C-alpha cells in the first residue's frame, strides 16, 4: 500500500484555451489526437512513486459548430500512446439551443484522473490533448461564448501528485 504525498505540481489556466486539431477516437496507430491544451511537469523523487494526474475543466466546447463528439487524452512526455483517454458524444438538443451558445451547440465539463507508474526519477511532462471529432475544442469557454469578467473566471487545472509507492 502506498503512503504519503511527496509533492504536488499544477498548472492552472484562467483564460480561454483553443485547439484546432480534431480528435478521432477510432484512430488506431500511435500518434496523438487533438491539440495540446495544457501541460504540467514534475520530477519524481523516487522511482517507485505513483503519480496521480488529474485534469479538470469546468466549461469546454466546440470552437465553432462542427462536431458531435469530443475526446481528451493524457500523454506522458513525448509518447504517442495515451495513458488515459475519454470520449463523449455529448449532444445538446438542437431545438433547445440557448441563445448564449452562439453558433456552437455542444458544451461540457470534464474531470479526468489517472494513476501513472512512470518508474523513473527523470522529469516528466504530462500533456493533455483534446479535440472534437470535426475540429478544435475550446476550454474555459466555447464558440466565443464565455462568462462576463464581472462574474469571475473559469479555471482549467492539471495537477500531478507524487505519492509514496
Amino acid at each position, binding site marked *: 500500500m502506498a503512503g504519503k504525498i511527496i509533492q504536488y505540481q499544477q498548472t492552472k489556466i484562467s483564460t480561454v484555451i483553443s485547439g484546432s486539431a480534431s480528435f478521432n477516437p477510432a484512430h488506431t496507430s*500511435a500518434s496523438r489526437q487533438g491539440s495540446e491544451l495544457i501541460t504540467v511537469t514534475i520530477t519524481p523523487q523516487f522511482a517507485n512513486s*505513483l503519480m496521480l494526474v488529474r485534469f479538470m475543466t469546468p466549461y469546454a466546447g466546440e470552437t465553432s459548430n462542427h462536431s458531435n463528439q469530443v475526446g481528451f487524452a493524457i500523454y506522458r512526455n513525448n509518447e504517442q500512446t495515451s495513458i488515459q483517454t475519454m470520449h463523449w458524444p455529448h449532444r445538446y438538443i438542437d431545438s433547445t439551443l440557448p441563445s448564449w451558445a452562439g453558433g456552437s451547440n455542444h458544451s461540457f465539463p470534464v474531470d479526468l484522473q489517472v494513476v501513472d507508474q512512470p518508474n523513473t526519477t527523470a522529469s516528466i511532462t504530462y500533456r493533455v490533448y483534446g479535440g472534437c471529432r470535426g475540429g478544435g475544442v475550446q476550454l474555459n469557454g466555447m464558440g466565443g461564448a464565455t462568462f462576463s469578467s464581472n462574474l469571475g473566471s473559469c479555471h482549467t487545472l492539471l495537477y500531478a501528485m507524487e505519492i509514496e509507492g
Partner: protein
Amino acid sequence: MAGDLTAGQVNLTRGVKLPNFADVANYPSSPDIGLLIFDSTELKMKVWTGDPEDETNPGGGWVAVGDSVVLGGNKSLGFNWGGLSTYNGGGSSASISSSSGPLGHEYYSVSYTPSSATSKLFISVNIPWMGETSNHSDHFTFGLYKDSNATALALWYADDRYQDNADSDYLGSGNHQCWLKLSYVEDAGSTAPRTYRIRGGCNGGACGINGSGNSYQGFPGQGTAFNIQSNIVIFEFEGEA
C-alpha cells in the same frame, strides 16, 4: 563559518546534536527563518518557515522535516487505488427506480485498511468512457458501495442522450454514452479493513466501461493509439486533533 551554524553540539566523532524541545509550547520564541530544532516529544526535526499564520501545518510555521502536509493541516497517512484498463461489458441492469440494492454489476474494487479510526477517507472515482452494450436503455445508474452493503455510500445518475443517427458508426448499436466522476469523503470509524466497490449499469441492460456500443467493446485493444483507465483512488487524511 563562525555564526553560520549554531547547534546544541557539534562533534567530529559524534555528529551534530540539535537543540531539544518538548512540545510546540516550548519551542524557541522569535525564531529565525530556517531554524532547525528537534521535538523530543514527537521525535521529529522541525524547521521554522517564518509564517506564524500558516494554517497548513499543525504547528503553524513549524514544519516537520520530511512530512507531507495537505488539506488544511491534515497529513496524508495512506493511499491505495484500483481499477480496470480493459473493456468490461458489465452484466445486470441498474435503474434509479429500483427499490433495493446493490445495483447492477460490480466492475472493480479496492481494499483499504485505515491506520487510524479518526482519519478521513477521501475517495475519488473516474470512469472516462462508458455506454450501452446495445441499444436498450436511456439512463445510467452507478454507486460506490462498501463491503457487502446493499445501500450505496454514494449514488450517481445520468441520462446522457446521444442524438439518434447522428453518428452511429463508432457506437454500433448503442446510442448512449457517458463518463463518470464521483467523489466521497467518510470517517474511517475504525482500523478494520474494508473494500469499496463500483457497481452500476443501464436501466434496460448492461453498461460497458472503457468503451461503448459494439465498435468499442474491444477498446483499448484497437491498436496503439490509446490506453484507458477506470479507477478508484483513496487518500487517508489525518483527522482534526
